[in-house]
């Protein structure tokens, strides 16, 4: 270790007042880069859970609003036959 004791380490020949705050700021930036996404993740996970709970409560399927799953069960061949010319009123 270049510095004999703790005091000279902090003082660093008069330059400590520049070096240590710089490293303090560096630490802040590093912590920001780690924790800001993690906090955002926590918020998003909570939202997803809330949506999952809301979706699991069976809501009345509105008539016009056909869900995708039922459309996929209809085989593509059968569905394209009814649709390709469009109904002529």
């Amino acid at each position: 270790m270049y510095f004999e004791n703790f005091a000279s380490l902090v003082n660093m020949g008069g330059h400590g007042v520049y070096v240590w705050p710089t490293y303090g700021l560096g630490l802040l930036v590093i912590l920001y880069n780690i924790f800001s996404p993690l906090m955002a993740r926590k918020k998003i996970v909570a939202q997803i859970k809330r949506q999952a709970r809301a979706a699991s409560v069976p809501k009345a399927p509105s008539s016009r609003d056909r869900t995708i799953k039922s459309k996929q069960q209809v085989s593509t061949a059968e569905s394209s036959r009814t649709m390709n010319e469009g109904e002529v009123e």
Partner: protein
Amino acid sequence: MLEVVQLRCERDDRVLFSELSMKLSLGELLQIEGANGSGKTTLLRILAGLSGDFQGNIFWKEKKLSSMYADFRLSTFYFGHKPAVKAELTPVENIRWRASLRNESPSEDRIFSALEQVNLAGFEEVACGHLSAGQHRRVALADLSISVSPLWILDEPFTAIDVHGVAWLETVLAKHVKEGGMVIITSHQSLSDISGTVRKVKLDDFAGGFLEDEFDDEMDSGAFL
């Protein structure tokens, strides 16, 4: 000429329409009906090539639209919600710059006769700023009537048009279709089926549900934008 295969469009977590397939050939008029917000305008913007945010394919003259853009745009007239008329310019100047963008240069008297037909006679040299919104649309309709593009894509052309104008526009559409042109139109009022070649597509038949239904497990929602 224009063919749409398995078109699907999502906007803000809502499937506007999916598995929409239709064909449009010369001498046909296609009316697209649907409630407000059912994606009529979005569909028209996709067909006009303004929006690329869709799945499925669009073919022009049996080739993929994305490879035929110049030819497609040379033969297309798009009439959007906003009439694309500059307030500071006069109707004649407006029609002239719009036509030059479409690589057309109509003669002076043809412009004047078109303006007369939409009874804007006498307003030819008045700055459009002094004209009403309805008159702005009529300037755009006058431009439509003298356009040589075979494919017309019209988004609610009848709004803010009086009864006389509606009748005139229907005759223009009928004449265009009879001469082998094509029209895709969205409108709330049902068109009087003059030439018998009006086909209707109800957008609600292809509406998809909201997107919160999960995709099945293997196929996550795809790697592509």
